[in-house]
């Protein structure tokens, strides 16, 4: 938790940074035209404290999963298979669409779980409290609908 105190953390911004840097490698002109990308990925570099923090997340998770022997390559989560069947393609497509919505929503709101819910609410920011409240209502309703709690009882 010292992490949250050193500096407000923000994972979703780093998705933009990586996008910006990659795009700048491939199509520098297009990347330069976007003020949003230029501002997020200042100098088109990944060598920042923030990016390395986010880079550390999968490393730490990998080590933890390896140490506790929880490394798994399961493709379709149980809850999902229960409702939508064990078809890998369907899960992958929906994961991709869901990921799109996640980051689109996060950037729209200016933060994700780490930036808004944890860092933002800790600072008693009204924007973060509203974002978090709407997020949970939306997620709970979607989960009930998706994973079939309605119509079963």
């Amino acid at each position, binding site marked *: 938790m010292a992490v949250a105190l*050193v500096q407000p953390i923000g994972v979703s911004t780093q998705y933009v940074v990586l996008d910006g840097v990659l795009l700048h490698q491939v199509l520098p002109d297009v990347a330069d035209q976007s003020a949003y990308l230029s501002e997020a990925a200042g100098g088109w570099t990944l060598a920042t404290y923030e990016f390395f*923090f986010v880079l550390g997340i999968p490393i730490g998770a990998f080590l933890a*999963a390896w140490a*506790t022997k929880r490394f798994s390559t399961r493709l379709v989560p149980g809850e999902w298979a229960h409702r939508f069947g064990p078809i890998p393609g369907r899960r992958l497509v929906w994961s*991709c669409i*869901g990921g799109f919505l996640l980051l*689109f929503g996060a950037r729209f709101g200016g933060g994700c779980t780490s930036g808004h819910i944890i860092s933002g609410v800790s600072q008693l920011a009204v924007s973060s409290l509203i974002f978090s409240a709407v997020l949970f209502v939306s997620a709970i309703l979607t989960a009930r609908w998706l994973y079939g709690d309605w119509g079963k009882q």
Partner: protein
Amino acid sequence: MKLLLGLVLGAVFGAALQLSGASSHTKITNALRLKDMTIMKVILTAIGVGLIGVHLLDALGLAHMKVKDLYLPGMVVAGAIFGVGFAVTGYCPGTALAAAAEGKPDAWATVFGGLLGALVFAFMFPDLETVLMALGQYGPVTIHESFGMPGVMLAVPLGALCLWLAVRLPDPGGAR
């Protein structure tokens, strides 16, 4: 040096996510279906410690406060979109990275979709900025400032409440 610090702190955070079960689709969706309180406990603990820690440091003049601007309609739309993505994938942008590192292919798809989503947003931003974000723009407001009181007075009791709730909520399995 700062890069290394970031990497190490990130790794600690990633390990904590993995060990607490926050990178598990089942745990997240069960949390959203209000069946398993593990994730709620983790979030409440983080917020509780954060509330007390940030505001104590702030009172000492040591905190890096970075309050996000409030733009009301945009916040509601953004939260709703994020929520749907959260329930469908069972990951958030950070835990998807952790789950991807555990070897879960659907988390890789989520990260890929996320990169696309962030990119599309970056190019839609000039249009969205004028339409939605201009409405109901209040700037970086916080609860305690709008009541005109020091943050610590509100944050410490609230933080204590979060931690109390985190302890009191039933353990997984216990509620069923």
